[in-house]
């Protein structure tokens, strides 16, 4: 029994090291390679809203959607019922909506498909310009839009139809690319 007091520290060290190894093993989760299903969205967000602000703290763009998701390796974010609002000095400049859409954050490009409608909020005294088409590409950085599909442009009672168009929103320039039909209503 006399030797026990001298052995006790050694026993203690031995027990502590066993305990440490045990804890280390338990806490070191086996880094099982979590297998991501490439065919399923990595994440999904319901009732999504994202707003971008300018240097003065005023909203510059707002993107809302009923549902937003992204696939594991995809660069684009996908939307259901996307609704884009672009502002200028805090005032609504134009809106774009569609049934489905995609957005690439690095290029600032957005694609809207099926029942797409762009509404350009006009200055006071002028009618809004409303553009209906089935597919639209919007460059948020340059505020330009384009489509190769059939398009109908409304302003007041005047209506224009064409196949394919480009729209430079800042310059207020709409180019109708082919098969143009327009009906100007007299004021």
């Amino acid at each position, binding site marked *: 029994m006399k030797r026990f007091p001298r052995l006790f520290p050694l026993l203690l060290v031995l027990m502590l090291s066993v305990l440490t190894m045990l804890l280390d093993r338990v806490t070191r989760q086996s880094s099982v390679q979590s297998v991501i299903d490439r065919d399923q969205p990595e994440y999904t967000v319901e009732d999504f809203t994202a707003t971008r602000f300018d240097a003065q703290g005023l909203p510059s763009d707002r993107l809302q959607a009923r549902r937003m998701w992204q696939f594991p390796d995809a660069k684009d974010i996908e939307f259901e019922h996307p609704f884009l609002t672009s502002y200028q000095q805090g005032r609504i400049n134009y809106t774009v909506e569609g049934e489905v859409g995609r957005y690439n954050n690095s290029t600032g490009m957005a694609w809207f498909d099926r029942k797409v409608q762009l509404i*350009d909020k*006009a200055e006071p005294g*002028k009618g809004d*310009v409303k553009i209906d088409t089935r597919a639209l590409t919007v460059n948020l950085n340059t505020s330009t839009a384009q489509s190769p599909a059939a398009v109908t*442009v409304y*302003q007041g*009672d005047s209506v*224009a139809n*064409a196949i394919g168009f480009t729209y430079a929103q800042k*310059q*207020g*320039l*709409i*180019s*109708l*690319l*082919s*098969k*143009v*039909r*327009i*009906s*100007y*209503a*007299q*004021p």
Partner: protein
Amino acid sequence: EIADSSKPIELSADRGTLDQNNGVTVWDGSVVVNQGTLQLKADHVVVTRNANGQQTLLATGKPATFRQKVEGKNEYIDGKGNRIDYDSQSGIAVLTGNAFVKRGQDSVAGNVITYNTQTELYQVSGSNPQTTGAAKGRVTVILQPKTEEKK
């Protein structure tokens, strides 16, 4: 016809550009403009809308042509020129360059013809040597004698 100027303008073309900020639209390629009985055909048309919404139209072609029904008669006025300027408010069309207007059997030709679509009167002038450099232009007017029953 007089009612034409109150009718909407229907336009078709191969392509077009709408400049909303300045109220100017430019149309190219087989451009056809209809307003009531007035029809204009050209290669290139520029429509300018002023502040209170009135439109002026500039058409060029090889040539640009227009046609309009005479008020109350089954008769048409046909005109053509290298360029046609039309003001929808005043109803005045100015044909410039090889201008020619024909109404029934009567016709008139010259460098510039001013035709009032509401009063159906037209005024023709020959070429101006300073502007065209050509010899002093002549005006040609052909008025067919009215036969007995037409008087």
